[in-house]
């Protein structure tokens, strides 16, 4: 069954788009079935009700969602990108 990743940023359109695309490509390369759902930070609680395995965020998290959270700034800046991709894949492979 495909894992669900909530990809959030401040507006739900800009940085989360870049991150979601990169996550989909990395998961495809690793053979991990994944569904990404983009949203604004404040929309996370609503999406959590539908179930999710991981949150990747490029904006500041202001609450504990109860599922793993990975900071996704590396998808924009490239800094530490390999570590972030590995962290995401490790969580989704569990």
């Amino acid at each position, binding site marked *: 069954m495909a894992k669900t990743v909530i990809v959030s*940023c*401040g*507006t*739900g*359109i*800009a*940085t989360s*788009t*870049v991150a979601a*695309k990169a996550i989909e490509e990395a998961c495809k390369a690793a053979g991990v079935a994944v569904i990404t759902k*983009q949203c604004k*930070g404040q929309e996370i609680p609503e999406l959590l009700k539908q179930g999710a395995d991981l949150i990747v*965020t*490029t*904006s*500041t998290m202001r609450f504990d969602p109860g599922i793993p959270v990975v*900071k*996704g*700034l590396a*998808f*924009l*800046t*490239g*800094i530490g990108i390999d570590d972030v991709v590995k962290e995401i894949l490790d969580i989704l492979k569990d």
Partner: protein
Amino acid sequence: MNIKEFLNERAVLLGLETTSSEEVIRALGGKLRDLGYVKDNFIEAALEREANMPTGLPLGGEYNAAIPHVDIEYVNQSALGLATFKEDVVFYNMVDSDEVVPCRLVIMLALDTPKSQIEMLQSVAAVLQNPDTIRKLVNAKTTEEVFSALS
């Protein structure tokens, strides 16, 4: 698709003498507004967004950048604006809003649809990930040098 296709040379402001992110957003947002790319309330929306959800990006090198942007409702047509500064301008880290990120470059994003701008955004990300390009942009003296750095 190339970042240059979205960057209007009149929305390039080089060597601004300010340390205030608000002044930068007003100056760059004003250009995008005067050029018709964004609505009148874009600037206030961008300022509010920057205060609540900052857009500073530590780039791990000599210079950092910020990428102010807002919801699509404030935008008429997709475009980019670019500004550089004589001194560091204080922005805050996008993913950790308590952390100061001193920036010498701002690329302002005006996006009109949620999905269709992926290539432009990836182009912006590619620029951010290239320290050589960042250095050329920060040190550009003319608009021509900016467009040349983005080639």
